[in-house]
């Protein structure tokens, strides 16, 4: 990326590289900064260190199993991957989903949005060096980890959606609804305290503001979806187009500043919107079945489904063969479209701040890595023949 940069003939002193094992990273990737003194002139993020061959794992599996592997794409967005994976076949074969199931899917999705955003705060504060606030974020996050545990049986992988609805295990009963309402109320007041405290802290704010600018043009050019794009003034949120979100009333947070602070603030505000949605769900949860079981897997053309996740837009797509087995599973995840934006945003900042800027785009790359072209250990590009020789099963 950044072709124009080359023509400027920047003299670059040295390279600093961090990762893939490093305190600033919450998963394996490598950041390379090309710096003059301490100012970042260019940045390169090397992903694909978590390449597990996920897309190939799906090949030939019965479609009911897709969601279980999809859920394992990532432990932060687990639910949305499972959800989107069933949305593909629901869209492709026209499977009706009961409204109650849709509500609960959205509920779990919003729970995870909050946990993801709070994890983001925890991570951002950790990168900022502010251990106390990081711990407070994790403490607040526990509220929703508990709720996920109650609903789905696990704090991280609730395995809620199945084709045609949700697992009966995750159905809400009255007492659970009450617990959710109580927790959400308690959480909200604590969360507001925490936000006030953070916003009023001059040291924290001086670290956040004035760095990591991403203009709207760049956001559009690099297709930075999700809060990253929205905090650069790009008013784009797929939830508006998703039929599951039609019944709910919420605001899409769009900020125009485009700096690191805006990216943090927009997520902070999104949590409050999620709380609104959760309240509406608990209040208006329709009665009825939670799963439609009258469907059969049959041949399905290649179908695509998009969902707005916590970091942006997520695509899942596959086709089914005659036997109902998955063919050609493809995933395109939000972070991959945000990567180029991250690399762009951190140029011109101090190294420590550049890492913060990257953290403020909420990178999480386990899902992004599917195409490996480099042989392990040797830094060279493998030819196709070699790849096939080595990983013969690919063909």
């Amino acid at each position, binding site marked *: 990326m950044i072709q124009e940069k080359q023509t400027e003939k920047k003299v670059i002193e040295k390279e600093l590289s961090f990762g*893939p*094992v*490093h*305190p600033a*990273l*919450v*998963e*394996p990737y490598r950041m390379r900064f090309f710096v003059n003194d301490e100012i970042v002139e260019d940045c390169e993020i090397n992903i*694909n*260190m*978590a*390449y*597990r*061959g*996920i897309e*190939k*794992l*799906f*090949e*030939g*599996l019965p479609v009911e*199993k897709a969601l*279980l*592997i999809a859920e*394992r*794409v*990532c*432990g*932060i967005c*687990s639910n949305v991957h499972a959800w989107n994976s069933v949305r593909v076949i629901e869209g492709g074969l026209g499977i009706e989903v009961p409204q109650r199931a849709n509500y609960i899917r959205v509920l779990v999705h919003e729970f995870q949005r909050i946990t993801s955003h709070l*994890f983001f705060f*925890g991570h951002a504060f*950790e990168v900022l060096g502010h251990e106390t606030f*990081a*711990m*407070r974020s*994790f*403490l607040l*996050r*526990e509220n929703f*980890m508990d709720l996920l545990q109650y609903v789905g049986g*696990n*704090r*991280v*992988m609730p395995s809620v959606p199945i084709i045609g609805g949700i697992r009966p295990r995750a159905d809400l009963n009255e007492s659970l609804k009450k617990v959710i309402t109580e927790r959400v109320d308690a959480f909200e007041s604590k969360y507001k305290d925490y936000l006030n405290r953070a916003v009023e802290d001059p040291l924290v704010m001086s670290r956040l503001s004035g760095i990591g600018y991403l203009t709207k043009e760049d956001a559009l050019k690099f297709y930075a979806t999700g809060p990253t794009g929205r905090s650069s003034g790009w008013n784009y949120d797929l939830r508006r187009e998703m039929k599951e979100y039609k019944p709910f009333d919420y605001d899409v947070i769009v900020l125009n500043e485009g700096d690191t602070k805006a990216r943090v603030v927009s997520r902070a505000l999104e949590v409050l919107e999620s709380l609104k949605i959760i309240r509406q769900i608990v209040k208006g949860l329709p009665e009825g079945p939670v799963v439609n079981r009258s469907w059969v897997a049959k041949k399905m053309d290649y179908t695509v489904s998009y969902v707005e996740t916590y970091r942006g837009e997520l695509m899942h797509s596959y086709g089914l063969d005659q036997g109902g*087995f*998955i063919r050609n599973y493809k995933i395109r995840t939000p972070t991959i479209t945000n990567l180029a934006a991250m690399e762009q945003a951190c140029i011109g900042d101090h190294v420590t701040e550049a890492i913060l800027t990257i953290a403020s785009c909420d990178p*999480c790359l*386990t899902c992004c890595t599917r195409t*490996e072209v*480099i042989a*392990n*250990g040797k830094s060279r590009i493998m030819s196709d023949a070699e790849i096939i020789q080595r*990983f013969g*099963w690919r063909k």
Partner: protein
Amino acid sequence: MTLKSIARKNAVHVMLFYSGGCNGCDIEVVNAMLSPRYDLEQYKVMLTWNPREADVLLVPGVVTWQMLEPLKKIYAMIPDPKAVVAVGACAVNGNVYKNLVGDIGVNEEIFAPVETVIPVDVKIPGCPPRPEDIIMGAVKGLPKLMGAP
């Protein structure tokens, strides 16, 4: 108990190695460390990011091709005595990545379980394990450290 084993029991430094799992276990480990609710430090276990300082290496997840060398290197960097804790089903038995592989039969992109790469002392099952399970696992690694020469 000798002074040696008392000292080892009273100060354990753990290092977390993201080997390429799904992130779920990694974050639960971070939760166990950073969430005041679990607070790993009260059990005399401290987090470090420096293999030279570590006693226990936590490996959550399958090991990918690219993380293989770093894992071996970092393991070698830790001064003896050291223990390795395999966190989560991925590290213990390869999870779905190794065992539920559709047409392709065997997934050659990953090394799992972690045992096949470096010796493992404690295994914590679960996908992901709860933070309390992780804490228990770290505590179970102690006797090995304490008993070492």
